[in-house]
């Protein structure tokens, strides 16, 4: 485990920001911390990145105590803050150069790393421009680039795609995947469920400072007892067919929305909805269209907390 947290707690005055959580983050994975604003994600990663000291509990990086040995850990850690943490009056190149210098990079080695990182983040043609002239997406990319310069073992990304256009977001997600393919461990926090679903091999769902569920996406979905929903529209009334629909294997419940429109809740694995659709089509009763809504982390969160991720 690259990161192991045991009963980790952080209290600010009377406010308990993180309430005795346990984390186990294996090397080489992208691990998501999912939760609404104020769930404790940023405080958790601030403790991992040595910014905050835990009030209690243990936090280990590669078996070493983060609180006791921050000097050993810092060179192996890359941190992408939620905000754009760059000197706006410096060029992109200067930002990379000076922050790289803080990690002891210099000379040819530093130049090579800047070239490599700027290629990864796709900003090499604008490096000589001042950061204040960059678009929001470009700033986000260089914000990530600065954290990659020293080739850390673990990179912590705190909502790195907030407030940017879809193209830049996709580029950042591709970058995260690429870094992971190169062997880097990534802790990725977001309240965008789609990003976590697209990237993370395992997920910790947090709310009110606690981890309320964890595991792979499949494990979380199955733990939460969420099901696939199939919405079907017909060109005739289906009232008289509802009884036959209920007899189909893996159909759990049927809701007739209008005379010609029904929603079917399916149980079982990914193939069950295919069988249900195939069965209904073979009845030849005028199926016009259908769509399948698979259970996702949003629904898992909704089920666990009774509210949405962005509420």
């Amino acid at each position: 485990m690259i990161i192991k947290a045991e009963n980790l707690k952080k209290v600010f005055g009377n406010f308990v920001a993180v309430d005795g959580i346990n984390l186990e983050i294996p090397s080489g994975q992208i691990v998501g911390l999912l939760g609404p604003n104020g769930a404790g994600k940023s405080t958790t990663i601030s403790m991992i990145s040595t910014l905050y000291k835990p009030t209690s509990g243990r936090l280990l990086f590669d078996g070493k105590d983060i609180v006791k040995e921050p000097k050993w850990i810092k060179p192996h850690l890359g941190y992408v803050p939620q905000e754009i943490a760059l000197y706006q009056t410096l060029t992109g190149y200067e930002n990379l150069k000076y922050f790289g210098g803080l990690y002891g990079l210099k000379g040819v080695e530093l130049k090579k790393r800047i070239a490599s990182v700027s290629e990864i983040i796709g900003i090499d043609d604008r490096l000589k421009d001042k950061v204040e002239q960059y678009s929001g997406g470009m700033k986000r990319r260089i914000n990530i680039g600065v954290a990659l310069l020293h080739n850390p073992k673990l990179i912590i990304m705190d909502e790195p795609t907030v407030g940017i256009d879809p193209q830049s977001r996709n580029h950042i997600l591709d970058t995260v995947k690429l870094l992971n393919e190169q062997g880097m461990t990534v802790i990725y926090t977001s309240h965008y469920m789609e990003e976590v679903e697209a990237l993370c091999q395992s997920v910790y769902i947090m709310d009110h400072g606690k981890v309320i569920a964890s595991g792979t996406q499949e494990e979380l979905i199955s733990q939460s007892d969420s099901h696939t929903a199939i919405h079907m529209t017909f060109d005739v009334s289906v009232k008289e067919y509802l009884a036959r629909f209920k007899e189909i294997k893996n159909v759990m419940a049927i809701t007739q929305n209008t005379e010609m429109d029904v929603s079917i809740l399916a149980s079982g694995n990914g193939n069950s909805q295919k069988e249900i659709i195939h069965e209904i089509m073979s009845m030849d009763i005028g199926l016009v269209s259908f769509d399948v809504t698979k259970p996702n982390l949003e629904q898992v969160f909704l089920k666990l907390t009774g509210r949405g991720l962005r509420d």
Partner: protein
Amino acid sequence: MWGLLKLKVRLMKDYMVLYLIMIGMSLFMAGIFGNTMGGNYVATLALVDLDQSIESSEIITNLTSEHGFNVKLMSYDEALVEVENRNVISAVVINNDFNQSEKGIEIVQIRETVESFQLSRILQSEVEQLNNIVSLSDRILEVSDANNVSIEPNALRSSVRTTYLDHWESKKPISLIRSVHNASSGLSAGLGVHYTVGMTLFFVTYSIMFTVGDILEDKRIHTLDRLLVSPATRRNMLTANLFTGMLIGVIQLVVMVLSGQFLFGISWGEHIGLVLGIGTLYIGVMTTLSLFIVSLVKTMAQLGSLSPIILTGMGMLGGCMWPLEIITSKPLLMLANFTPHKWALSAIEGAVIYGRIDQNTWISVGVLAVMAIGYLILGERMMYFKSLKQN
């Protein structure tokens, strides 16, 4: 550490306009004050010579030629009117037989000013010189009377006077070497130095304060988190900020020393090294004081509001805007002792104007060093507690 220093030095470019304004302002203010109160300005005084002797005429000559006063001879009543109308800084009345009577020399003035203060010091010196001559003559007469040698008193006094003035300066057994720089400018030279040094010490503090306060800007733009996550320690960060604060202070000091010499004609003389040394020590105090003030506030806006009040107040109390010699209020003079400005100004002025490097100079240096260490400890501890609170 080097990486951080390079970054901070590069970021100083962002404050270039501020630094230029501060240098420009100190040049401008030194020029304005120096020219109005020093420079070509010549103080006028009314002089009433009731003695009409050789001694009195020599005093008048000295006031005019050596000390740069514009002396107007007039009657006592006319002199009082001139003083009341503030046409002259003071009226000097040389009473009849002033070197023998209790009345001596009187100074009539409405209030103490820097010029009248200097005038009284000059006259004090003249009177002391005459007292020495009279005293010496009297002792010689006593000795000659005791030995039944007859000497004409007036002839003796004249002889002693001539010997005292002409020969003793070069043949005296104990020498007090005292050099007065730019003596031809008289009174104005001291004020020129005072305002150049005073304005430099005053304006340099703003540059230092905002450079040290850059740590607050790092917090605002979130780069502080990035720095804290990096291998750079908090102590490295403080050191880098203090270094850049001192660097800009020293640059500004050197610019002002050069400007003083080439723009305002100030001759820093043989003590240029001491001036720069004391100036650098003062900059050290102001840098550590800035750290302490920065530790008290949370944002650059708070610093921007607080620092002019503190820095202007300290500059005024410390004598940057006017010489402390004209201040008569004891509480104000007592408070001035708590400002680094007072100690730096006094040591630099002592060296440049009066050519004096004595115990007072080293006391000033010591006080400045203690202040620098004290503020450094206070600032560092405050920053440490602040970071604990944040954590």
